[in-house]
């Protein structure tokens, strides 16, 4: 008797298939298994349900039902209570573009579009070709021209006037895209056979990781000038950008090192035995696997750095958070903190959540088929 032949899920055995007992399937069973399986879980379930019942209606009321729609003047808002979404519509351009000259604000708008388009294009693995690098150079050049101007009939705009979302995007996108290759080199350096390179990488990583980002930003604005000859003025934005790159590179290097360590020795040996040189072995065999493993910690770093760009406010740059705070200092709009922080919170969240979602998709794609 060979009864263990099966097609799909149907066993053609001597014992007929039966349905599972009714009390183990269906919504009631689900509730019992997941929410009320022990007396303390039942208690927790009831407690949380009560808290939600208490918290959600007033929140919804403020957000939607009693909210004042766009156009309600602030004085009316103040009397009525409820969210005052006029703040958002009124201050939208200031929060988004900061002090960039009002009539020229189409320029930062296009900047945002270009940067997002570049990032989206880079998300598609079919575009992972050498020309993508050229596209980035072209795109970032266009961004530079748009923001600074001074050529092609565009008026010159000093970068102290830049602010809002373009500043946040530029700091993070430029920062992370420079820091990423640097971090790969640092991670490889830390595992190098050459002692000098290893010592330099380790020292760099440990030094930078050992200080808070804020202090690095301060140092970038007060210490760099010490090293420069007097009279040479080093751009504040550029200093902040460099501080970010240095910091992000050290963190990402450690994330990548974790991935490198997970690659079995046999992979290095097989690559060596085929006659690949160091860079070929790293570029074709080791890094593609190590980076795929490092995606979760890397995305973690990406997300936290995207948000940490808001720290530039301490050296007097107005990123998205900075412009929102500045908008609140307008006497007519003082006090609408909730609306302001909620609004930029949503913007940050949309970007970070997209990064997270994309990374999950990328992880799935990269692991498809070759899981051992």
């Amino acid at each position, binding site marked *: 008797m060979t009864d263990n032949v099966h097609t799909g899920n149907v066993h053609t055995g001597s014992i007929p298939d039966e349905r599972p007992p009714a009390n183990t399937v269906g919504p009631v069973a689900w509730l019992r298994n997941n929410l009320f399986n022990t007396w303390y879980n039942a208690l927790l379930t009831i407690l949380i349900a009560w808290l939600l019942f208490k918290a959600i209606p007033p929140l919804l009321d403020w957000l939607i039902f009693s909210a004042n729609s766009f156009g309600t003047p602030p004085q009316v808002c103040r009397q009525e209570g409820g969210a005052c979404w006029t703040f958002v519509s009124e201050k939208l351009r200031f929060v988004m573009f900061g002090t960039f000259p009002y009539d020229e604000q189409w320029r930062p708008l296009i900047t945002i579009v270009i940067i997002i388009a570049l990032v989206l294009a880079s998300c598609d693995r079919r575009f992972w070709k050498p020309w993508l690098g050229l596209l980035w150079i072209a795109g970032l050049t266009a961004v530079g021209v748009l923001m600074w101007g001074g050529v092609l009939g565009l008026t010159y705009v000093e970068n102290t006037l830049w602010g809002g979302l373009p500043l946040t995007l530029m700091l993070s996108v430029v920062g992370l895209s420079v820091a990423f290759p640097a971090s790969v080199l640092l991670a490889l350096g830390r595992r190098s056979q050459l002692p000098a390179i290893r010592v330099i990488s380790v020292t760099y990583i440990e030094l930078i990781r050992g200080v808070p980002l804020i202090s690095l930003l301060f140092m970038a604005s007060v210490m760099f000038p010490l090293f420069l000859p007097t009279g040479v003025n080093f751009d504040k934005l550029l200093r902040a950008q460099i501080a970010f790159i240095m910091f992000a590179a050290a963190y990402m290097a450690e994330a990548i090192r974790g991935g490198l360590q997970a690659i*079995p020795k*046999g*992979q290095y*040996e*097989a*690559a*060596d*035995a*085929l*006659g*690949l*040189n160091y860079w*070929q072995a790293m570029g*074709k*065999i080791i890094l*593609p*696997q190590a980076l*795929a493993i490092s995606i979760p910690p890397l995305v973690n770093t990406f997300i936290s750095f995207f948000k940490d760009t808001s720290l530039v406010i301490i050296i007097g740059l107005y990123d998205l958070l900075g412009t929102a705070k500045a908008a609140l200092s307008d006497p007519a709009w003082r006090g609408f903190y909730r609306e302001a922080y909620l609004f930029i919170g949503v913007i940050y969240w949309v970007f970070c959540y997209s990064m997270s979602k994309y990374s999950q998709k990328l992880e799935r794609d*990269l692991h498809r*088929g*070759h*899981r*051992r």
Partner: protein
Amino acid sequence: MTMAQTAGAARTFPQGEPIIQCQGVHKWYGEFHVLKNIDLSVAKGERIVICGPSGSGKSTMIRCLNRLEEHQKGSIIVDGIELTGNLKNIELVRREVGMVFQHFNLFPHLTVLENCTLAPIWVRKKPKAEAEEMAMRYLKRVRIAEQALKYPGQLSGGQQQRVAIARSLCMSPKVMLFDEPTSALDPEMVKEVLDVMIGLAEDGMTMLCVTHEMGFAKSVADRVIFMDRGEIVEQNTPNEFFNSPQSERTKLFLSQILNH
């Protein structure tokens, strides 16, 4: 029958033009002396089986031949190039020496076909189409062409090992090194891999194979080398080696592996 009288180690191999020459090779891991005074000369087209107890230094020895391990004393010349610290020379030697590992070591992020074309394209600078055509030829030869677009993780152990052999062959090596190619395989898959290796031997490939498959040694080897505690204790034709082993250590080893 004059050979039977001489001690195996004293017999002089090989007769033809040598492709590998080791002279007085020593290697240490820290204080531990793994290879002791290895003298080995391999002729073109020769098929050598290396056996010996676990830890005797078999893997270490063949891994010195493509410098996956570094020796500290003596000289190793492969295909006319001496293996020293010179990276360029090491890469040149590795192009000509294929290696098959116990655990296959296929690249899991690349398809079977990409595994096979990677080195020809990047090391031999072959055009992609040509490399793919050659890869398909070798994959056919190891009877796995229909799996070319799968990933290694989707294949059985025996299939993976055959791909690993094809991957090495795609570099058109002059010598193939095998380090226990069948010992990580389930018994029913050993034969399919050995068949491929026998086919290679029949085509005249120079092979050095660390294995415990004594049937393979008897049927294809020109010479069997017995290693123990870092030394080459005895080497002889399979016939002599199995029927009239010279040293006590060889006899003990043979009695252990043939009697289970």
